[in-house]
């Protein structure tokens, strides 16, 4: 079944549906949260790209937006929330602290959340400007469009 004309057309339709209706779970901890508020609110509206609907439960969201510094104490919490998310799921690392530990290279901070969970898009900046956040979102949508979709009978995984 996989790989012929029908399934690729179906893939494209599924990708189109998924990329324009991203429900994100804002895992907000620190200063980037202020910039996330600006990006999500009326001025730089994230909702223009279909990703404005914030779901505070991992069961109903397909994009984990990790915003702000992740301390070692918070690492198991992040891992639990990621595991409890339903497939298909994507992760955006928002801000320098999530990308690489940022300016906090010490005993208390996880040096980048890709040491805990697989990450799709990294948004640099401390904090990143809202325009960079929107650009990161567009890059994720591009990635969703091009990668093979995950669905029940499609043995090819992303």
């Amino acid at each position, binding site marked *: 079944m996989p790989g012929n004309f029908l399934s690729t057309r179906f893939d494209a339709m599924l990708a189109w549906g998924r990329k324009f209706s991203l429900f994100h779970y804002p895992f907000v901890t*620190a200063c980037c949260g*202020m910039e996330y508020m600006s990006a999500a*609110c009326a001025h730089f509206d994230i909702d223009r790209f279909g990703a404005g609907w914030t779901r*505070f439960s991992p069961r109903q969201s397909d994009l984990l937006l990790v915003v*702000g510094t992740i301390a070692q104490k*918070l690492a198991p*919490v992040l891992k639990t929330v990621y595991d409890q998310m339903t497939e298909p799921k994507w992760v955006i690392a928002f801000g320098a602290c999530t990308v690489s530990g940022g*300016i*906090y290279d010490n005993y*208390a901070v996880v040096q980048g959340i890709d040491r805990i969970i697989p990450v799709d898009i990294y948004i640099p900046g401390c904090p990143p400007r809202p325009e960079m956040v929107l650009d990161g979102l567009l890059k994720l949508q591009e990635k969703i469009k091009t990668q093979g979709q995950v669905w029940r009978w499609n043995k090819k995984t992303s």
Partner: protein
Amino acid sequence: MTTRLQAQARPDSLLLNMGPSHPAMHGTIRIMLELDGERILNSEVEVGYLHRGFEKTCEHRTWFNLLIYTDRLNYVSPLINNVGYVMAVEKLLGLEVPERAQWIRVLMSELSRVSDHLTCLAAMAMECGAFTAFLYKMKAREFLWDVIEQTTGARMTTSYIRIGGVRADLHADYEAAVRKGVDETRKVLKDVRGLLDKNKIFLNRTRDIAVMTPENAISYGWTGPCLRSTGIAYDVRKAQPYLTYDRLNFEVPVGERGDNFDRYMVRMKEMEQSLRIIEQTLPALQASAPTVEAGGLEPAEAIRASRTRRPESRVRLSPNLEGSEKAVYPGIMAADKRSVPPPKEDAYTTIEGLIGHFKHFMKGHGLRPPKGEVYFAVEGGNGELGYYLVSDGSDRPYRLHLRGPCFHIVAALEELIRGRYVADVIPTFGSMNMIGGELDR
């Protein structure tokens, strides 16, 4: 591992986590609740989920470099943290800051304080369901952040207030931007006041809930808007006036009952006072504005000219050095050579400036305050923001401790929500304006 709460809990009560990753817990606090139905019998607050080792990291940074860490403490009003740290170091050095730099610091602190209260009340209102108030306040905050961004270059993590003054002078049309920001904020305050002040739902959720008596607030070490909501008018700007606050007239709003609604109302009134202060700083800044003659030599011309003789007129270096030219320098930076880097034009064109620049920034040289310790407090967004610095004469602080106001405010959370409903935790916690960076450091 069983926590204290699990050990003491009654077998038939429901134990629930209002955990770190919760929309109303700002992502960094875990409250373990012991519930009988909806009523909270007992609770245990667990903090430290945003402990980033600030104090340990600062012991490994020079006095100048750790300024960036102070922005990220109370990241809702970063400029006030800058002012607090920088004035503590200036008190250690015994440095005098020029008049205009002090006025710019007051303007920037008050802009930061208004954006702090806007964000706090926006989050509190949204968590009680008033999403419109959140959007209105975020819109107003954008205008204030525009002013801050045009002056300091960054919206939030500014590091703009430097030891000895400020990094650059205000941009050309700052006054128009400030007036627009103030008017927009006033309009939004009027709208939100109409939305929330007499709103039955908001009143039922906040009036007479989590009441704090003045004695209890003192015993918890409360300061700032939360202490003033219980009736005690203690404000560091009035108690120990620093910068030019003694020349500004503004009132200190005080609440009566010390419940959630009073904490909300005190912050709303305080925003109006801060807007008044901002308007009073404008004429003073206008008066002390330096006269900078436009134009100036391009770097290439200056070099060609300097082969024959030293260029008299100003050298226009690069756009991002706007505002910190040599002509405006006396207004924004202290005159003391030892602790203040020379203006960039000197550093690029004269040998003394170059030596002074390297003396200031090279590893192992840098700023060396005298041995000793100092405690300096400013009025932060949440209360008395105090820096306790211990210097052993080297170029790094031996010990830097921050007295975070919301650390003491959140310490009272367990007592405030005992016996109340689960739904009351949200406005109580929202009105405390807990900021992870300042609480867990």
